[in-house]
């Protein structure tokens, strides 16, 4: 019995027991459903073993939406708890766990997965490639992410969640002040998912450098591909820092080392520094692809080419370099002294310049354009004002002397939500709606989509603008309650209503997927939005080989020019197409990673050893494997093309 006690949740409440039951029942229902409909074979052959970038993208998308739900429920619970002074819905311990898991889930498992989903699906199509550089590693990336996410979510019902914030600052996160295993979950689940992200980074850099269609020079790449390239470079250089920090944190917790402790020479500030050396680039890892999506969407729906392409590219490159030079602004108050603070204050404010350039370029693209206010365009137009407010308050926070007032108040919380939500979430919803027809062969309903947009946009403003005031009045972040006299009540109540608006928007999106899947027409052609770049030049939905013939390009908007200037994209004849084989190895290896992680969390060394051997065996087998892929014959390609498009090239 003692053995099982370690898996118990430290402060169980009815919610947790209910979730356990709910999770158990859902799991049984899913497994039974798959068995009943005899879908195990299908699931294994078509999804668990797939190496197709489009399917991997779709799996990332589904996971991201699930995580958005999980993180959203956390958010609603927090807002409900703080909606009234002295509320007792949640205890302080629960509240700590919830704001921690909310932040982690949203950043690592929702936002990262969402951008990876869209990069996976879109980048190879935009550059006219048949897949990514390393399809097998791409599957490995996904399964590492997935297992990391599952491990982290498991903490809710087995052993208890981490509770020292998504930033997990030491010494709070150390053994002394967080004796419970929750923080182990944080360290190890992020390590596993982070490894997947790093592999994605390398994979996409090589894909974009080496696999572009003939004629697509770097300065002819679509902007989304540009931002994907820069984001993946940021990933490759920033994530190793997180890897090291997490490894050290893990060692402090499991092996009693003294990296971040208060005694034996340990240095807690080292964690804060490492965390933000990774963490600030991370916010740009998230937001740059979003900028890319806005560039595509705004130019498509303004019927114009993007204004200031070169300055757009230059500004993302500048942003990516500055991103590594500002991390101290996250702890101006922690004693670096005036000189260091001043330097980082200046670098921080400098970021606003390239960002401003981009905003003006988008505005000039719309200027005198024939604007179509579709759902993706609505998100893009809504993004500009809200994001600007978030950015300007960022500059306020960047003034080191003033930050002593704002730091760790609700003002900060308002700032980063007002950049991340319009910056990342709006962009992902815009991108999802925009590329949805390419993914699934039908369009999402515009009317429901617009309702969802308005709920989300108004919800965002209502949820976060009041926090500026509450913050300036002195409400600290991460406090589970406050007294009546403090006078924060009204602002928090408004925030709660905003949160409900966001939830309503999310429900409408889910409903829209259901409604459109059921009723939308499948007869939409290859280019339902009248778009400009290569991904619209293939069939809808995209066949597994992407392009029957490799496109040849000589401009920035090859598909637009093909439509309007009669250029030909596809010059060759159809020939045999080489494709990679599916493989179960990435999935199996990641199951071992999951067991490995679970073993480490609870210091169950036998599990750790067994799963390490499993991982090593997988690597060894992979090394000896000879797999040159397979070919799709030209006749079969012709047949597919004829069925899908009517003409044969």
């Amino acid at each position, binding site marked *: 019995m003692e053995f099982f006690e370690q898996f118990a949740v430290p402060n169980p409440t009815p919610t947790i027991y209910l979730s356990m039951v709910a999770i158990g029942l859902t799991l049984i229902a899913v497994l039974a459903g798959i068995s009943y409909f005899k879908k195990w074979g299908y699931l294994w052959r078509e999804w668990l073993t797939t190496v197709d970038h489009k399917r991997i993208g779709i799996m990332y998308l589904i996971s991201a939406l699930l995580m958005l739900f999980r993180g959203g429920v956390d958010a609603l619970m927090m807002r409900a708890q703080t909606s009234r002074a002295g509320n007792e819905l949640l205890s302080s311990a629960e509240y700590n766990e919830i704001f921690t898991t909310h932040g982690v889930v949203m950043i690592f498992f929702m936002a990262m997965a969402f951008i990876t989903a869209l990069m996976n699906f879109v980048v190879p199509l935009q550059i006219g490639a048949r897949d990514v550089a390393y399809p097998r590693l791409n599957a490995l990336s996904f399964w590492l992410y997935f297992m990391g996410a599952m491990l982290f979510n498991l903490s809710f019902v087995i052993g208890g969640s981490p509770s020292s914030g998504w930033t997990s600052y030491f010494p709070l996160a150390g053994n002394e002040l967080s004796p419970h295993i929750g923080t182990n979950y944080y360290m190890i689940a992020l390590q596993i998912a982070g490894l997947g992200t790093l592999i994605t980074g390398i*994979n996409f850099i090589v894909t974009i450098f080496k696999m572009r269609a003939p004629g697509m020079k770097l300065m002819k790449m679509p902007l989304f591909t540009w931002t994907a390239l820069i984001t993946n470079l940021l990933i490759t250089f920033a994530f190793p*820092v997180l890897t090291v920090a997490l490894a050290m944190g893990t060692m402090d917790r499991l092996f009693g*080392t003294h990296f971040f402790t208060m*005694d*034996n020479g340990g240095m807690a500030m080292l964690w804060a520094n490492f965390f933000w050396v990774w963490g600030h680039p991370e916010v740009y890892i998230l937001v740059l692809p979003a900028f890319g999506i806005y560039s595509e969407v705004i130019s498509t729906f303004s019927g114009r080419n993007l204004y200031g392409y070169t300055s757009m590219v230059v500004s993302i490159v500048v942003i990516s370099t500055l991103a590594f030079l500002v991390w101290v602004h996250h702890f101006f108050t922690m004693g670096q002294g005036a000189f260091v603070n001043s330097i980082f204050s200046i670098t921080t404010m400098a970021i606003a310049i390239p960002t401003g350039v981009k905003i003006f370029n988008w505005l000039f693209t719309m200027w005198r354009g024939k604007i179509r206010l579709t759902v993706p365009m609505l998100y893009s137009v809504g993004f500009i004002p809200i994001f600007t407010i978030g950015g300007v308050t960022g500059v306020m926070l960047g003034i080191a002397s003033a930050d002593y007032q704002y730091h760790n108040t609700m003002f900060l919380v308002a700032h980063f939500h007002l950049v991340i939500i319009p910056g990342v979430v709006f962009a992902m919803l815009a991108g999802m709606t925009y590329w949805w027809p390419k993914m699934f062969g039908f369009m999402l309903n515009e009317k429901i989509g617009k309702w969802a947009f308005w709920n989300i946009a108004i919800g965002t403003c209502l949820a976060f603008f009041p926090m500026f005031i509450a913050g300036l009045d002195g409400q600290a972040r991460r406090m589970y309650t406050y007294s009546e006299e403090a006078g924060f009540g009204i602002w928090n109540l408004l925030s709660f209503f905003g949160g409900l608006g966001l939830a309503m928007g999310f429900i409408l999106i889910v409903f829209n997927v259901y409604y459109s899947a059921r009723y939308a027409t499948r007869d939409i052609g290859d280019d339902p939005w009248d778009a400009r770049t290569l991904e619209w030049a293939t069939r809808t939905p995209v066949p597994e080989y992407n392009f029957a013939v490799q496109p040849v390009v000589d401009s920035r908007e090859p598909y637009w020019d093909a439509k309007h200037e009669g250029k030909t994209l596809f010059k060759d004849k159809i020939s045999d197409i080489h494709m990679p084989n599916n493989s179960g190895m990435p999935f199996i290896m990641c199951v071992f990673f999951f067991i490995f992680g679970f073993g480490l969390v609870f210091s169950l060394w036998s599990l750790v050893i067994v799963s390490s051997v499993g991982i090593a065996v997988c690597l*060894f087998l992979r090394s000896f494997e000879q797999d040159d892929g397979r070919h799709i014959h030209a006749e079969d390609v012709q047949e597919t093309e004829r069925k899908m498009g009517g003409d044969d090239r």
Partner: protein
Amino acid sequence: MNIDHSKPLEYSTETNDMNIVGFWVFIGAEIALFATLFGAYFILEGRTGGGPSAGHLFVISTLMIQTFVLLTSSFTIGLAVNAMRLGRKGATIGLFLITLILGLGFVGVEIYEFYEYVHEGLNLQTSAFSAALFTLLGTHGAHVSFGLFWGVAIIIQLVKRGFTPATANKTFIFSLYWHFLDVVWIFIFSFVYLKGMM
């Protein structure tokens, strides 16, 4: 598969070319990883928390053996790649084996060295300095050890399959990895050991 015979075998197919570029990018990530570890070491170096310090621990003899062994192994793997370009299978495999044996020697000395440190009273748990030192050296050592297993796998493939675009590619990439570890060691040699002994 298109094999371009004008290029060296390890570069001869598109996949090969991509694997090499990808490995360079991976080395970029590894540089970031080691840079962070070095950063941590420099910051925590003086924080010995009452335990032994760098000046007390480092001895010149093991350091010299390690350095000599690892640098030589980097030279022999270079020769192995050269032999591969000349198409001499036996020489390639022989030199590759010598490389791994030297690598094994390095790991052996490192383990002995760690053992000595523990005797001097420096555990992983002693201080921030000890944790940073063992982590930096250990990460490098773990990379070398991983290389030993990986190298054996490649040698077996060379023996069984001879020079093919795939085996040549793996051998070449292994040599990049090995040279990289050598470069890291030179940094460790200068900025950990020499600096610590001064």
